[in-house]
């Protein structure tokens, strides 16, 4: 139904796509896999003819015989949203914040003149009902919805005119595992029901293994391998596919080094958020974001903390870092209480690495400045030459070169930036590092190398890791013990292997079932 033949693309003369060819049949789910920068999204945008300025595309892309690349803009507009629909990665920003969701779904119908106002509203309601949002009504604004619900709204708007092809560009990357599974199920059901074709673009091999019947692996603007999903995964003829598969299932070599003495102890920790204002003085009941959490972390141990988004993982992390006060219980590190008044000498021993290194770096600082920042926590911080040596040493520890010191963060790739963030965390020779989704934004091959690095550092420095993630594959690969959190409480804990092989709590089972490809790989 859709035939792409020898699609090449360059932007301002830089080649982006090289002879991409693929075919998708009716009712088929076609997975397009590759790491960031491989050209997946550009392939999709070329089909939609929504390319950035300066882009020149050659080749053919036929949808039911019509060559999309040869169509004028007016002809393309008639197809977009009608025969050819697309949903994007970021559901949080993909909807207009000042329009009710029903209006945005109905717009697809109105713009194509497919229905009058009243009828469009009715169809919009049906579509929202179909994607599982029937109970919230059409008058709700996007800000009142969760990420998963917003993605459902986008899907509703995309399927309103029963398109022939739906392109989903990383539709679940920003969502947690359970929501991801629900969205993927919804897409699968819609494909069967409407007999449309689905081009599912993702960096996550696991997502396509469960969903797509055919996949194509993309690398540096080319499709290096394509065929039936089972064939590709079983045989991986192409060396790149093999690397990709290996990297996504990668487990760093490490032993359990946990020492008997505890490093960090939490006992019945409670973190309350004030309730919503109800009038001038009255407030609603406070939200118990963290509700009686207790656990120990030992020297040299990796402890995983998993749970759906919004379960309180990050709130707990902020309390452990002494950034926010707790309203009950005790947190002690090295035998001393942790609170926002934590003395600098102790603060230096608890460091953190966040998910988005770019967001946690000041873009106008050089790497030397960035990495040296935690030094102010020390009583006698090294200065001048000594400081540069110190930074160089930290950079070497994360396999960067001392020369990188004089560069700015934008000069590095995502993986390198995360290395810089780890170097920064190592500066004060900490005992505890909190890794809050530290590898979630990275490509699988980069992620594999960072996990190796973390394992090596741990062995060498006896670090205690608190590894917070919604990605169960990673947690299984790097942690000794795991805590499962739900609605502010720890509902299950134990040795990682035991919890993963025989989960006891329903929440753990849901998480494991939702995790795509965890069984397959």
């Amino acid at each position, binding site marked *: 139904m859709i035939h792409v033949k020898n699609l090449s693309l360059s932007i301002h003369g830089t080649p982006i796509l090289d002879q991409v060819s693929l075919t998708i049949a009716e009712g088929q789910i076609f997975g397009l896999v590759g790491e960031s920068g491989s050209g997946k999204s550009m392939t999709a945008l070329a089909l*939609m003819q*929504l390319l950035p300025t300066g882009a020149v595309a050659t080749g053919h892309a036929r949808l039911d015989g019509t060559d999309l690349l040869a169509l004028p*803009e007016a002809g393309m*507009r*008639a*197809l*977009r*949203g*009608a025969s050819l*629909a*697309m949903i*994007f990665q*970021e559901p949080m*920003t*993909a*909807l*207009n*914040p*000042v*329009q*009710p969701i029903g209006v945005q779904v109905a*717009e*697809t119908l109105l*713009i*194509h003149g497919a229905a009058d106002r009243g009828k469009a509203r009715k169809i919009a309601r049906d579509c929202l*009902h*179909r*994607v*599982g*949002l*029937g*109970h*919230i*009504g059409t*008058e*709700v*604004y996007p*800000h*009142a*919805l*969760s*990420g*998963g*619900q917003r993605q*459902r709204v*986008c899907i509703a*708007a*995309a399927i309103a005119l029963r398109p022939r092809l739906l392109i989903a560009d990383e539709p679940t990357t920003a969502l947690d595992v*359970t*929501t991801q599974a*629900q969205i993927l*199920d*919804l897409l699968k*059901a819609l494909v069967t029901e409407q007999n449309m074709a689905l081009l599912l673009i993702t960096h996550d091999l696991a997502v396509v293994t469960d969903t797509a019947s055919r996949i194509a692996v993309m690398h540096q603007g080319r499709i290096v391998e394509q065929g039936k999903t089972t064939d590709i995964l079983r045989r991986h003829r192409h060396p790149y596919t093999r690397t990709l598969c290996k990297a996504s299932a990668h487990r760093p070599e490490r032993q359990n080094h946990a020492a008997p003495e505890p490093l960090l102890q939490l006992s019945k920790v409670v973190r309350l958020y004030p309730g*919503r204002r109800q*009038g*001038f003085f009255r407030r609603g009941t406070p939200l118990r974001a963290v509700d009686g959490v207790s656990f120990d972390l030992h020297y040299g141990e990796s402890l995983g903390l998993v749970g759906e988004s*919004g379960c309180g993982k990050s709130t707990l992390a902020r309390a452990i870092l002494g950034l926010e006060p707790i309203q009950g219980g005790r947190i002690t590190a090295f035998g001393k209480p942790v609170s926002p008044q934590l003395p600098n000498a102790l603060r230096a021993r608890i460091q953190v690495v966040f998910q988005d290194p770019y967001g946690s770096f000041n873009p106008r600082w050089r790497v030397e400045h960035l990495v040296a920042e935690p030094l102010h926590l020390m009583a006698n911080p090294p200065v001048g030459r000594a400081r540069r040596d110190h930074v160089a040493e930290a950079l070497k520890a994360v396999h960067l070169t001392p020369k990188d010191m004089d560069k700015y963060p934008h000069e590095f790739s995502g993986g390198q930036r995360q290395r810089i963030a780890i170097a920064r965390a190592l500066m004060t020779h900490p005992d505890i590092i909190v890794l809050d989704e530290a590898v979630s934004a990275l490509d699988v091959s980069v992620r594999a190398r960072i996990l190796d690095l973390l394992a090596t550092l741990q062995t060498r420095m006896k670090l205690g890791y608190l590894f917070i993630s919604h990605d169960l594959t990673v947690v299984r690969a790097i942690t000794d013990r795991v805590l499962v959190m739900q609605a502010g409480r720890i509902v299950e804990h134990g040795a990682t292997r035991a919890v993963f092989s025989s989960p006891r709590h329903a929440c753990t089972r849901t998480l494991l079932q939702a995790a795509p490809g965890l069984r397959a790989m």
Partner: protein
Amino acid sequence: MPPFGRSSRKDTPFPAFRTRETGFNLGAMLRYALHRLFSLTLSLMGASVVIFLVIEVIPGDSATFMLGLNATPETVAALREDLGLGGSLWERYWAWASGMVRGDFGTSYTYRVPVSDLVLDRLWVSLPLALYALSLSALIAFPVGLVAAAGRGTAADYGIMGATQLGIAVPNFWFAMLLVLIFAVNLQWFSAGGFPGWEHPGAAMKALTLPAIALALPQASILARVMRSAVLETLDQDYIRTARARGLSHRQAVLRHALRNALIPVLTIIGLQFSFLLAGAIIIENVFFLPGLGRLIFQGITQRDLVVVESVTMLLVFAVILVTFLVDLAYAAVDPRIRQT
């Protein structure tokens, strides 16, 4: 559809608030308005205390000033009593503030008439002038800013950006004189100054036209630039791309999705501009011999007519706060996220 109805209910973040946040909720809007009104009333009270104290600490009171250097202490004391300058600080503040609330602004020392009459006369010139200038400014700036944003990097964009730069740079009194020279002296379409009063609305509007244009030029230039950058910023948002994927043309995406989101910074500037136009038109009022509020406060200051200064300042603060309140309401009307705070 059983499988989806069940699963979706799970990712509703706050099921309890679901009904409350549904659509345009008049109750939420009213609650928000009351909330804003409450905090603005507090600011108004704070401002009145500051104004009163500042006027109080200025050395030399009005009685001494009015009677001249040769007055005996007894006459000064008598006049002070007469002017209501006796009593404790608190009593005087209370008399002044409560008078304001009742609409009694005191009596001007120099004109010997109630300040409220003076202010009201002037307000009938300044308020229409400000509104006139602001409407002109918005009428010019909206389409101009939008055209510049929609055609980013084109000749039209560069032309508009250059023109607005010039509009900001040109001093408005010079521009006003230029207008007088062209339209009043040479072409003789308008009179060069003065105000005939509202008995002849047509003539009054005509007399305000040149001043309004002179005032609107720099404001329109600023507003057009704000409009352009606000629209450009929203054009980079993901929901514009979603709209394009839905089949909207670039122009439709701008008009249907970018415009309303871009209005928020634009409203902020409009609010600030109105406050400025109401009192800041003093130079233009002088060029065109208009009896406006700016001239009144200027005369009050030079003649040490502190009652006038105090009252007009307070009135302007009130106007600013009122406009802020209206802008706040406009925010909430535009953006559903603001209504629930």
